[in-house]
């Protein structure tokens, strides 16, 4: 179980401070595939990095299996991280290592016995459907294959948790579907609890049982995917679901009003039959500070 209690993260810079996360309270139960959805700059990437402490929260606590890990340092911190797998939008595979060597990396870091590690790596590559690709290099693989390697790598230490940071955002829709199916299978067969960060409702719909919607650094809605989809309460959720349109520009200053100017809508009213989470419904919202 992962619990975030009153979590906040403030970045200090020359231009002042920026609150990336405000009062985040979240419980992720064992066996969940938990979606955290929000637009760019909402704070979701910072949130997931607080779980394995790649980012230190400014306030609040991170509890893993009931143990407060917020202030872990040194060896304790490295051990904690090796028990939590992570995959990324750009895969972040090591370009100068073979597929096999990439999967071995987390085991190498922990100085695991070579023969055991090799067996584990081969099993994982079989699991993700990359049997026989051990000697290839990442540059020789497609995006979907690279993400499969990175999933195998993330599972090498037999983690109880797997964090996915926009893991399918760089992939086409068919590949996305197959990666999400793989994540569901891993959840079911290995019992790995999965946290999925995404900006696409279609990902939540396809893979998750629970969802938290994050907007402006806060969690604005949480619940079972079915109930949130059936009765979204927050405006941003309705927008992400394509039930409400988003203004393209800030309202124009009254002083500059030109006779013909009318409020502009970014997108045409959504056709009821259109799939949810199409890029057009999200495009108009500007990134606040890039994808933190």
């Amino acid at each position, binding site marked *: 179980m992962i619990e975030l209690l009153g979590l906040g993260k403030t970045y200090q810079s020359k231009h002042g401070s920026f609150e990336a996360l405000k009062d985040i309270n979240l419980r992720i139960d064992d066996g969940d595939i938990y979606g955290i959805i929000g637009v760019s700059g909402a704070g979701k990437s910072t949130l997931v990095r607080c779980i*394995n402490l*790649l980012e230190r929260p400014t306030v609040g606590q991170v509890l893993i299996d009931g143990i407060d890990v917020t202030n872990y340092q040194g060896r304790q911190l*490295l*051990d*904690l*991280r*090796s028990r*939590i797998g*992570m995959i*990324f939008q*750009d895969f*972040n*595979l*090591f*370009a*100068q*290592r073979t597929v096999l060597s990439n999967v071995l*990396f*987390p085991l*190498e*870091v*922990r100085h695991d016995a070579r023969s055991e590690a090799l067996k584990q790596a081969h099993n994982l590559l079989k699991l993700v459907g990359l049997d026989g690709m051990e000697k290839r*290099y*990442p*540059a020789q693989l497609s995006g979907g294959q690279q993400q499969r390697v*990175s999933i195998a*790598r*993330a599972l*090498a*230490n037999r983690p109880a948790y797997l*964090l996915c940071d926009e893991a399918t955002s760089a992939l086409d829709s068919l590949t996305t579907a197959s990666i999400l199916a793989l994540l569901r299978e891993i959840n079911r067969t290995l019992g790995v609890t999965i946290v999925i960060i995404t900006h696409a409702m279609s990902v939540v719909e396809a893979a998750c049982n629970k969802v938290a919607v994050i907007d402006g650094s806060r969690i604005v809605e949480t619940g079972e995917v079915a109930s949130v989809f059936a009765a979204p309460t927050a405006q941003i959720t309705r927008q992400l679901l394509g039930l409400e349109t988003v203004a393209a520009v800030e309202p124009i200053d009254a002083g500059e009003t030109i006779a013909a100017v009318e409020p502009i809508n970014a997108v045409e009213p959504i056709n009821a039959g259109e799939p949810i989470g199409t890029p057009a419904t999200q495009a108009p919202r500007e990134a606040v500070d890039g994808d933190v």
Partner: protein
Amino acid sequence: MSELFTSEFWLDYGPLLGKASIDTLVMVLSSTLIAYVVGILLAVVLKLTEPNGLKPQPVFNAVLGWVVNMGRSLPFIILLIILIPFTRTIVGTIVGIRGAVVPLAVCAIPFVARMVESSFSDVHPGRIEAAQAFGASTTQIVTKVFLRESLPSLIRGAAITCITLVGYVAMAGAVGAGGLGDVAIRYGYYRYQSDVMIASVLILIIVVQIIQSVFNLIARRIDKR
């Protein structure tokens, strides 16, 4: 000039040029090696302590960066002279191969440090974050990510370092280091034996070409991108 291609010329000057070539190579390779041992260490420290590095120490980083830049701005010929007492303490002499290797290495260290640092900077930050996420320590990130991922770039940088040092070795030749530069100056310049000078320069050109080709070949072999 025409006697350059006769057998008498090579009988007379072949051994001299051969020994000078070997001396040049020994000086270049040994000073490159020493410069890399120290230069990589400096680059690691510079990279780790930079403001958004793994162990940020902005003030220390700025001071060290400044010292490295100072080292780079000193002309080699001045460095050669300033270092005379230091060279004498370390190797007991200021002439010959041993006397030249010390200033050559010292001169190359800041150059190598910046070259290696820039290779490190080309390692995608996401790969460093991935390594951190799997519980890699800072030492492991340096050896398993920075050094390993940037190896092809490091090898290309080493070719540039070696070739730059070929030029410096020739300069050191002017103050008694030996090598091809020394032969070119002593025989070609002072004694007006332009055939010897041309032969030395031709050998230098070949040496540079060989260094570049060998390093390029290795870099291409090991680069898996």
